[in-house]
């Protein structure tokens, strides 16, 4: 019985009434020799009084929600060691979707969007994420199919809600699936600032938050354990906007065993150090190099992943960064570029790139079952 539930309140009220009435009604039964009679009657009165105090306390707690559970009352703490910095999206609909459980019929028609905490077992980090299941996930014919996953990372600052609301990612994917050019994919949307307010640039910070471990190991493990998704790298892609794009490319390059494809929308390709990142690499150049995609391409064998980079010609710095990165790439890393003729670093431009991004992902990701009920997408 929960501390805040009506059955509990009813219980304490009943106990109070029962003990107090019982004290009066059974008064004469509480007899016996002097001291015993005194003690039993005093105990009866005190029991009734204490029950009344407990009832008032329960009612006050119900009203102000001081303690939301028994474990919290017992001093079990709030359970979360780290505070997650997240935008609390307005309740109800987000991007046209009701967040949370919906009826089976609704899920089969438009998919399901949920908002959940994803805890990292190895890194001990955690964050809130949107997870979207496409309508095909709920089709009875697909009940044995494991779906590919695209993990989307926001920029800094940025919120997962923005991606769901302004990127048009979900709607675009469903439209392109209807066209036959894209594959229904489970989407996981989170922001990579797992140790706020530091921008850790998705690195495993020495003696600090192990954000890269979270993204490469913990997040896939948790999603695989919870949902019917691919257990192979060929079904996993990492994508992001701006800083999220840098994260996506860097983590995929360093963990090709976890991800086979990466998308960077208006991202950059070298490690940044500023006041928000602090000293990420403990001042050690080797660590910083290892987290720098351009350095990795120049000094290490290229990883076997596919990378799609996008930018708009109006973003001069991004364009130059991206060109440099692409010039360093070589097999087995396959790079693709999408250039938008004009427009700045904003969601309007990003959203316009989504159809192409979604189609590209479909051509790289495969569901685990070899029996796909969709026609294979055309290669682009």
């Amino acid at each position, binding site marked *: 019985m929960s501390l805040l539930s009506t059955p509990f309140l009813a219980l304490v009220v009943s106990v109070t009434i029962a003990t107090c009435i019982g004290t009066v009604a059974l008064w004469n039964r509480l007899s016996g020799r002097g001291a015993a009679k*005194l003690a039993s009657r005093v105990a009866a009165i005190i029991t009734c009084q204490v029950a009344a105090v407990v009832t008032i306390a329960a009612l006050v707690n119900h009203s102000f929600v001081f303690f939301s559970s028994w474990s919290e009352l017992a001093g079990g703490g709030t359970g979360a060691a780290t505070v997650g910095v997240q935008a*609390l999206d307005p309740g109800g609909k987000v991007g046209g979707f009701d967040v949370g459980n919906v009826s089976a019929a609704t899920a089969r028609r438009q998919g399901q969007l949920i908002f959940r905490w994803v805890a990292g077992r190895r890194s001990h980090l955690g964050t809130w994420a949107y997870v979207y299941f496409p309508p095909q996930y709920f089709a009875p014919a697909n009940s044995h199919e494991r779906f590919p996953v695209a993990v989307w990372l926001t920029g800094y600052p940025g919120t997962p809600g923005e991606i769901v609301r302004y990127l048009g990612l979900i709607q675009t994917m469903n439209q392109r699936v209807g066209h036959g050019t894209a594959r229904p994919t489970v989407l996981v949307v989170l922001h990579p600032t797992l140790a706020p307010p530091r921008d850790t640039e998705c690195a495993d910070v020495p003696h600090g938050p192990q954000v890269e471990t979270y993204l490469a190991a913990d997040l896939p493990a948790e999603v695989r354990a919870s949902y019917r998704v691919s257990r192979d790298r060929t079904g996993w892609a990492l994508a992001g906007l701006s800083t999220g794009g840098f994260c996506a490319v860097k983590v995929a390059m360093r963990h090709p065993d976890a991800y086979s494809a990466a998308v960077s929308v208006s991202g950059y390709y070298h490690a940044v150090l500023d006041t928000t990142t602090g000293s990420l690499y403990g001042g050690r150049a080797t660590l910083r190099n290892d987290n720098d995609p351009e350095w990795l391409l120049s000094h290490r064998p290229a990883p076997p992943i596919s990378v799609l980079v996008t930018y708009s010609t109006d973003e001069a710095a991004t364009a130059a960064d991206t060109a440099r990165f692409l010039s360093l790439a070589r097999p087995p890393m396959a790079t693709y570029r999408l250039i938008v003729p004009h427009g700045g670093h904003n969601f309007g431009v990003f959203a316009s790139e989504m159809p192409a991004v979604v189609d590209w992902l479909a051509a790289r990701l495969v569901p685990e079952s070899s029996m796909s009920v969709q026609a294979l997408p055309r290669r682009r």
Partner: protein
Amino acid sequence: MALTGAPLLVTAITLAIGLPIVTVLVWDRPRHKVLRRIAALFACELMVFAAAGLAVNRSQYFYASWGDLLGTSGVGRPVGGPAAAAHYGLTGQGARQDRPTPSSLLAYPPAVKPGPGVPDITQSAIRAAYAKQGNRGSLVLYTSLFGPFTGYRLPAAVYLPAAYFRDHSKKFPVLEMLGGYPASPQSWMHVLKLRTFLDGAITRGTLPPAIAVVPTVDPSPPRDSECVDAVGGDQAGTYLGVDVPAAVERDFRATEVRRGWSLTGYSTGGYCAVNLWLHYPAQFSAAVSLSGYFQPELDRATGDPFAGNRQAGQSNDPRWEVDHRALLPGGLYLAASGGDPASVAAIRDFAPRLPPELHATEAWLPRGGHNGAVWRAFLPDALAWLGHRMR
């Protein structure tokens, strides 16, 4: 006996056990049986509630004294008033009537000595207090802050970091910490263990060394001031937004730079922090709300501070203010916990109204109700956010 003292609690518990014993002994006495029994049971009931209430108050520091509980310690109406303003050479400015504008704040002479009858936080007193704890670590002073504009003199706790005593030329940023309702400065210090968290954040480097001041939020307890200037009543907003900064700048080496001043509060204090930040943008650059709300909540404890005046009500409603007024750049940190649905709903309603250039950060604990454990859990992150903004 002091309200929060152990002797009073022990007495209450003794009576809570003793009265039932007496009740049993007099139960069967002849004459007025029914009256006696009812009176005796009622007395027992009262005593048990009193003992429980005293125990809770001791742990949470809701009311620091009998005066707070019974309403005799409050200012009721401004104390000093014009005479106090004259001490600071402000006669003729009419400062006590109008809300001081930012320009009049800048005109306030920085190093004026308080006049007679007003307690003085002298440098020697601070040094003596520090010497008493061995000239090590940080210092917490329990003192009072006198406000020249309101004339109120109210208890406050002031935290001075260890660095304050090492570098005598440096000026420090100031965190103004506001408690909920009911609360005393001891609530922040003992229940939320502010000193421990400040020491920790400064040592770890997430917060630069800073002064923290915990003023009294309700000039006339047990009335809940909601930190507003009540129409025809207590001027809590002016006290907290103008007088407390003025007093701190006068008595301690506090920065005059807006970037170094912030407001932090829990529960009602969170509403206070955001509302005062909106009212005094020249003084404060950031506000932190832990499980706070964003419109005045009027109930029996608050009464109607606006006396039906619609403009006063709107200007103290952060949601209305944000919708209708241009805002200075600044930062907001809004925190809520999953086990406290009202705080979550408040942020969900308020946050979408904020423009992006305001840099609102939201913090979330998935579990936890409306209590000190949750606010302590937020403190490291909130202090780091404040520290990040000050750099």
